[in-house]
């Protein structure tokens, strides 16, 4: 376990340092030149490092899951790993996605400039310093009202500094990540396998603690609504689900499951939680599948079903499939690191790297089962 811990810590350290190579040249803080050179000039090497980190993280994850299932790793050890991961990656740069800058810009449009972010785009505020490096300045707010209200907290903490805002938003998302882990821990009746399946899943770790996507905030309130039903607090539960829907709208798919659980709860009938988690997994997976209708499948969307698959620890095949999907989705960023281009051959490579791990694992499971 000590060797495992050491390798994991080294990986987190490499990931944190590597992430600073992706800092935009116009960002107020510059990373050491060699990192910038590595990512922008020695792109095949950078791609190799990225794929290597992802592969190593998944290999370690598989090992930790296996050892936890065998009872070799106990809950306190997992919690320790969760806190270490959070602390390490809190200082990393949101390298693989620029969404956190959209969150900051939206909050600034509302709270700094007093403009409606659903009406005014950041690009219309010509003197906004974030325009020098943000990537979606020509879009009005993409997220729901709950998120905009919640984002006032990290915005207030940053005191107008963009660099401080990055870490304030990272801290805010990390706080909800820990909260979500705790909810999974409680709802799984303190099952360490459930905890490890979500909290240390490389996709969750990368997309939440490095890229700071707010999907965990949405999922926290969604899962909290089920927890509140369990505690016989239906009004608060409904309110919590409304907040969740108001963050990114995706959890609207949980309404039928929530309605079913609420109905059983009000009738004081026994709630088949296993069925509820399966239903929720199906609902959120469907949302991931239909997401290309809007834009494309982004890696962080997988956090939606992963929240519920973690609550089904005995469904081994399910975890293989979701781990393979997570690996494939994370690899979608690799062709961009190599080409610095989202067009040309990149879309084709993205399709291949997304589908290949899933196809291979499915095939392997089929053969293995026979």
């Amino acid at each position, binding site marked *: 376990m000590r060797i495992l811990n050491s390798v994991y810590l080294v990986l987190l350290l490499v990931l944190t340092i590597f992430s600073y190579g992706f800092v935009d040249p116009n960002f107020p803080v510059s990373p050491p030149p060699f990192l910038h050179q590595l990512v922008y000039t020695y792109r095949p090497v950078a791609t190799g490092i990225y794929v290597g980190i992802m592969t190593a993280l998944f290999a370690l994850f598989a090992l930790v899951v296996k050892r936890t299932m065998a009872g070799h790793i106990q809950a306190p050890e997992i919690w320790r790993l969760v806190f270490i991961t959070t602390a390490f990656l809190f200082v990393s740069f949101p390298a693989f996605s620029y969404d956190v800058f959209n969150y900051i810009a939206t909050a600034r449009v509302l709270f700094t400039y*007093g*403009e*409606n972010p*659903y*009406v*005014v785009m950041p690009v*219309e*505020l*010509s*003197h906004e310093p974030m325009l020098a490096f943000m990537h979606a300045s020509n879009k009005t707010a993409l997220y729901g009202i709950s998120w905009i209200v919640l984002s006032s907290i990290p915005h207030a903490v940053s005191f107008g500094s963009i660099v401080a805002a990055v870490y304030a938003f990272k801290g805010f998302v990390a706080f909800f990540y820990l909260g979500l882990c705790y909810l999974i821990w409680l709802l799984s009746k303190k099952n360490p396998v459930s905890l490890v399946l979500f909290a240390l899943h490389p996709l969750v770790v990368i997309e939440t603690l490095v890229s700071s996507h707010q999907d965990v905030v949405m999922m926290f309130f969604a899962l909290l609504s089920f927890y509140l039903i369990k505690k016989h607090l239906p009004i608060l539960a409904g309110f919590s689900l409304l907040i969740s829907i108001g963050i990114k709208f995706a959890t609207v798919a949980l309404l039928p499951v929530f309605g079913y659980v609420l109905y059983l709860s009000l009738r004081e009938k026994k709630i088949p939680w296993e069925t509820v988690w399966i239903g929720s997994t199906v609902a959120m997976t469907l949302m991931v599948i239909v997401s290309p209708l809007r834009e494309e499948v982004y890696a962080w969307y997988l956090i939606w079903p992963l929240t519920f698959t973690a609550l089904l620890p005995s469904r081994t095949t399910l975890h293989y499939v979701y781990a393979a999907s997570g690996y494939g989705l994370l690899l979608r960023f690799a062709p961009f690191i190599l080409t610095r281009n989202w067009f040309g051959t990149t879309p084709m490579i993205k399709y291949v790297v997304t589908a290949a791990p899933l196809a291979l694992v499915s095939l392997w499971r089929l053969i293995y089962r026979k």
Partner: protein
Amino acid sequence: MRVSRCVLLTVCYVFLFVSPAHASYVMPYPSYMPGHVLYTPRTIVDRIGEWWNFGEIGRAKYHNRLSDRYMVEAKTLFEYGQYKLAVSALKKSDLNFAQSLLYIREVEQRHKDNGELKAHLKEASKKHDEIIISLLSLLPKKAIWEEEYEEPETIEIAFLLRQSQIMRSYADTQ
């Protein structure tokens, strides 16, 4: 031979490089007119829109949009001889244009943009001016308007249009 070549080149230039559909500023299509069942609900939506479009930039854009819409409404009503309603729409357009101008001044004072909104409003004022000029040539200077059971009243069409024109020219002097 040389002349025909010149003509041919000119024609080619016109077709290749001069866009026949140049539209620097596009006015909206006429929306619901007074008397339509959806006219009042749309006015209510507009009132809510004022609340939704908070902030100086939001308000400037909002009033500019309404100013355009009422200008188109006024033009359509004038063309159909509905002078009383047309004047009402023209006054609404003037009021919204003035409000947009005031909000743009605040945007400038707070250094929120580099004058993009002001440039946009100038374009709008030019377009409005074009419409007003066309109406001035089309309409009588005065009209007697007689509503049922009411005293007839004189509508100073030319005077009101000139007033609107002066207000639009104010955007250029800013």
